[in-house]
């Protein structure tokens, strides 16, 4: 370095006292603090730094920022990530980068053979070939060739953060317009967030030599940044890209290297009252044969390299332009010691102010660059008059091109504000009425510094006024800039198969012409057929050129051709940042009962139950097989006593003058007739006539009920009830309180349950007469305040002992101690499943699968026919009226008692391979019958009880005998005992 003459001896925003070693494409180099990888490569004389996607053509560095279409790298080591533009990559010590899509290196790339068959693989070629004999023959090779960087293989060390923020005004971009807007808004006292994707603030002022208020513009930047830092109401984020502007002013920012806390990056969800997009403008390429050669560079990038990074991107330059801004770039190149052989301007005449800006440099007005010479590095360009005529060769190793400027309307347009074509600037510009999102500065078409500053201030003042702030009086600083004018030249005559419109995806003028020739003439068709604008850069330098080229060929204006939609992200965003620390429990929350830890200590296998509760599936003992465990637990309940944790059961207190009337309305059966202290099973439907939930409700007082719901549906039932009340019956006096977590319960069930409760000690009269089935009593159990309900989900004598969750561990311990002599055993959901199937009790997700109605399930008894209306009645009746055959709940026993039938298995007529007539909802090993049996929903099932049906499996047929869906204690004597 240094000695090769690429790096200037002084100037630039680099720290020559802090050298940084890095490795690129297998070779070692040294750069400085303040460099990007791109500036360091140029300073080390590296010109060939990439290979193109399709043809593997040699490419260099063409841009100086996010617009870079050519040199993408992937990083090795700790920073491992792929497809990063070298121009936005801050150089760090030890950085190791490789060009993507080149093997073994960009210099010796094997894939370059594709250049030899380029003629065979024009746009869309793959739609026409690779069909015979089959696409699968070609696909693996194409997949390997496609893709750019390798996929990340290991999770990174470290974490990202995603967080919320709120601002009165969010400003995207800390260039001149953004800084000016931030100053005005900040001084007014508004909460301001200023976010800029650059490593430092300043935007275009960092790369151009301009003055503000008579001093170097960067002095003004420094002062502005300092003033903003001192304002407590302003937050200023650098290295923070605003990548999306969504509905209701939700603005997404990716902060790439936060200093505190030490995280890899941070995603900000900013909700802003007003948004100002001061995102600058992007320079376009010129389009001619060989415009992609290493050595061809955007004029603004060449200017940035000499001014900001003190690097000469070449020794002898030609500047090719159709507008005024390149003249300043040419002047800066010359000032840095680059010999400017010519400024080739397609316009004639060239405005005087432009000539003046580059005083003394030779200008070829009305000329164009027709082609470039050289292979891996530019050696010369061929220049000719635009109108035709004698070509001449100019030796050079740098061609700085400027096809004009496209305001970065991306964020503005994402907010759904309209844009429109502007002939004067030859660009799409913000065209919306004043709204919550405004563009400012170059992004608004204000391409001259003074106008940009004024625009930034004006947009801030408008936003302040909208929000009710008094805008401060602010004098605008004086600024001088070159006026901007352009006469577009979309493609140089003769541009064809090697004139690139989209550098990254290798889309040429010939490709566009082919697309149009074949009828793909909508701009969306052109984009999709050629893949132009679909690369990582999303066509930042090329899209408008494509639109211009298409317009030219169709005889339309670019405005008539239109743009493809601007979609987030503005620049690629790491998925890690989007998720932040959200993982595991924050992706899928979980819920514990007061006993979940106890269950786990007992070795229970924990299941993910409904509503995210974690509860025991079964409690295996050492050496015990799964089925043995389930049998043991189920048998305990049938023969002795079991206990289970019922805490997750949904519970609501329903209070008010109209509480009973409300229950009558939302349940299919009647609750108003229930006497205090007693309970009733209820079935709840939606107005579609489908089952929503079931459960038992008890009447605690005339105006007060406690309702239980299934675990998984507790929230849905709450939503259903509140919606009906607040939307349909606001005049009813009903108040609902969710007490799911206020009452936990241990359910003690089995023939010896009463004995256990008595052994635990209770002041409730436990005799069947005093405390019958389906009643509820308040009292004390084991000294704890309890509400005991006689309900049964197992078919046995059962007491649901409800206590405050804080008391549940003590209650449980008391039950285990007092129950020990009776052999009390904790049971999990597997055994519960067996017990409920034996009783023919319904289970949501099994029999209640979202399609069955109560009649199907044999529950016509629960449909109070006398009630004129309840939720769901009208639809159930209507559906019945169609006379369509229904699937009805039946029990079944496989003829072979040892044959398990898979749950979910279809039943077909005769077991044949034809449309199903039902399916198995549940099948368990019954401890009371000592065999497999189950439940099924079967067409006209009830009428077929006593006959046989056939389960059709891939491997054969299982014949089953149909029976009523209750296998155990059909009269219910045990649960009433």
């Amino acid at each position: 370095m240094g000695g090769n003459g690429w790096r200037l001896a002084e100037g630039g925003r680099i720290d020559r006292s802090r050298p940084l070693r890095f490795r690129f494409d297998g070779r070692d180099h040294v750069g400085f603090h303040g460099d990007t990888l791109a500036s360091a490569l140029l300073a080390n004389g590296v010109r060939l730094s990439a290979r193109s996607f399709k043809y593997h053509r040699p490419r260099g560095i063409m841009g100086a920022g996010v617009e870079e279409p050519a040199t993408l790298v992937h990083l090795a080591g700790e920073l491992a990530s792929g497809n990063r533009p070298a121009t936005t990559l801050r150089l760090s010590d030890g950085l190791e980068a490789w060009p993507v899509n080149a093997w073994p290196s960009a210099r010796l790339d094997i894939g370059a053979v594709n250049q030899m068959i380029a003629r065979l693989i024009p746009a869309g070629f793959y739609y026409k070939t690779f069909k015979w004999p089959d696409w699968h023959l070609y696909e693996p090779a194409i997949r390997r060739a496609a893709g750019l960087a390798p996929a990340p293989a290991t999770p990174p060390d470290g974490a990202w953060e995603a967080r919320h923020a709120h601002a009165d005004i969010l400003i995207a971009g800390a260039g001149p317009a953004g800084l000016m807007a931030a100053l005005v808004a900040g001084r007014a006292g508004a909460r301001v967030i200023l976010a800029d994707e650059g490593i430092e603030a300043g935007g275009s002022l960092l790369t151009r030599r301009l003055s503000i208020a008579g001093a170097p513009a960067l002095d003004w930047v420094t002062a502005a940044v300092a003033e903003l830092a001192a304002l407590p109401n302003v937050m200023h984020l650098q290295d923070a890209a605003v990548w999306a502007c969504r509905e209701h002013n939700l603005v997404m920012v990716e902060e790439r290297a936060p200093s505190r806390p030490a995280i890899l990056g941070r995603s900000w969800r900013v909700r802003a009252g007003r948004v100002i997009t001061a995102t600058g403008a992007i320079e376009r390429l010129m389009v001619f044969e060989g415009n992609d050669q290493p050595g061809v560079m955007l004029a603004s990038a060449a200017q940035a390299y000499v001014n900001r990074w003190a690097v000469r991107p070449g020794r002898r330059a030609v500047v090719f332009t159709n507008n005024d801004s390149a003249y300043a770039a040419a002047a800066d190149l010359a000032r840095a010691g680059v010999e400017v052989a010519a400024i080739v301007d397609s316009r004639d005449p060239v405005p005087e102010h432009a000539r003046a800006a580059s005083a003394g440099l030779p200008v070829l007005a009305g000329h164009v660059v027709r082609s470039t010479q050289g292979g891996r590095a530019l050696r010369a360009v061929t220049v000719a008059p635009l109108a035709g005529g004698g070509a001449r060769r100019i030796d050079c190793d740098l061609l700085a091109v400027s096809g004009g400027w496209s305001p970065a309307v991306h964020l503005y347009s994402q907010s759904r504000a309209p844009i429109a074509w502007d002939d004067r600037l030859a660009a799409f510009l913000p065209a919306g009425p004043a709204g919550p999102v405004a563009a400012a500065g170059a992004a608004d078409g204000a391409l001259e510094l003074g106008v940009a500053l004024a625009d930034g201030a004006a947009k801030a003042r408008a936003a302040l006024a909208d929000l009710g702030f008094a805008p401060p009086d602010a004098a605008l600083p004086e600024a001088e800039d070159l006026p901007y004018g352009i006469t577009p030249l979309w493609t140089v005559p003769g541009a064809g198969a090697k004139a690139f419109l989209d550098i990254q995806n290798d889309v040429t003028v010939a490709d566009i012409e082919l697309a149009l020739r074949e009828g793909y003439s909508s701009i969306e068709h052109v984009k999709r057929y050629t893949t132009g604008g679909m690369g990582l850069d999303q066509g930042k330098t090329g899209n408008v050129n494509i639109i211009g080229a298409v317009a030219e060929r169709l005889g339309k204006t670019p405005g008539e051709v239109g743009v493809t939609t601007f979609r987030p992200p503005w620049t690629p965003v790491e998925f890690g940042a989007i998720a932040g620390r959200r993982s595991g429990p924050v992706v899928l929350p979980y819920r514990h009962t007061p006993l979940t830890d106890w269950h786990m200590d007992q070795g229970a296998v924990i299941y993910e139950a409904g509503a995210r509760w974690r509860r025991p599936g079964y409690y295996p003992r050492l050496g015990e097989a799964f089925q043995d465990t389930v049998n043991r637990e189920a048998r305990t309940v049938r023969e002795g006593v079991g206990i289970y944790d019922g805490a997750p059961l949904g519970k609501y207190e329903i209070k008010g003058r109209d509480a009973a009337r409300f229950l009558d309305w939302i349940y299919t059966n009647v609750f108003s007739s229930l006497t205090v202290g007693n309970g009733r099973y209820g079935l709840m439907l939606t107005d579609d006539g489908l089952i929503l939930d079931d459960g038992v409700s008890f009447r605690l007082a005339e105006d007060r009920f406690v309702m239980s719901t299934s675990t998984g549906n507790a929230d849905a039932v709450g939503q259903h009830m509140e919606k009906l009340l607040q939307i349909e019956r606001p005049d009813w006096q009903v108040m609902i309180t969710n007490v799911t977590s206020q009452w936990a319960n241990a359910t003690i069930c089995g023939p010896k349950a009463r004995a256990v409760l008595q052994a635990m000690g209770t002041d409730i009269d436990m005799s069947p007469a005093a405390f019958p089935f389906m009643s509820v009593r308040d009292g004390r159990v084991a000294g704890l305040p309890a509400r005991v309900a006689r309900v049964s989900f197992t078919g046995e004598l059962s007491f649901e002992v409800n206590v405050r969750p804080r008391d549940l561990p003590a209650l449980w311990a008391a039950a285990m101690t007092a129950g020990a002599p009776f052999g009390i055993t904790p049971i999990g959901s597997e055994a519960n499943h067996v017990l409920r199937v034996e009783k023919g009790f319904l289970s949501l997700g099994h029999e209640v699968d979202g399609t069955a109605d109560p009649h199907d399930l044999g529950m016509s008894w629960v449909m109070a026919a006398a009630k004129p209306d309840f939720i769901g009645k009208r639809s159930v009746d209507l559906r019945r009226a169609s006379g369509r055959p229904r699937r009805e709940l039946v029990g079944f026993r496989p003829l072979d008692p040892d044959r398990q039938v898979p749950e979910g298995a279809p039943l077909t007529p005769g077991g044949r391979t034809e449309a199903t007539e039902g399916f198995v909802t549940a099948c368990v090993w019954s401890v009371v019958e000592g065999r497999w049996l189950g439940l099924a929903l079967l067409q006209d099932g009830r009428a077929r009880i006593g006959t046989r049906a056939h389960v059709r499996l891939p491997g054969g047929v299982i014949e089953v005998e149909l029976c009523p869906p209750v296998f155990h204690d059909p009269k219910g004597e045990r649960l009433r005992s």
Partner: protein
Amino acid sequence: MTGYDVAIESLPMQAVIDLKGEAAALAGWCGDVLPQFPARPNSLTRASGRALLHIGPGHWLLCADLADEDSLIAALRPDAAPPQVSVVPVSDSLAHFAVTGPDAAEVMAVATPLDLHPTVFAEDAASFTEAFGLRALVRRHPGGFALSVDRSFAPMILQALSLSAG
């Protein structure tokens, strides 16, 4: 520094009584057991160690030390309340956490989209909102914020808060 300068701590169970009904009816039933009714939605008033939070239309929470629970229940007589008033003890339903320290607001900004800036979320503010996808009550707490969620989520929310603190 690797994480935020913040302390995450589990707070003890509080006495919490859920109150629903018209303010006048509630005032009539509850008498001077309650602090003065808050004037604004999502704000709270305090008196003699009790706080009254106006958390929804016709909906308040009365919070106090757990030691006060029995006396509150005795005074408010949930089982005897008239039809137009709902009084339900829900102390066990909520688990409370304190997020305190210089960076408390940073951690809260990870947890919840609610704007907790002092000009928006005042000293007496108390509101249910969303935190880590859950329904959560946020209040100011000496040196930071208190966050309350359904108790069944307590282990999960503690994990989430600790993760967010870095």
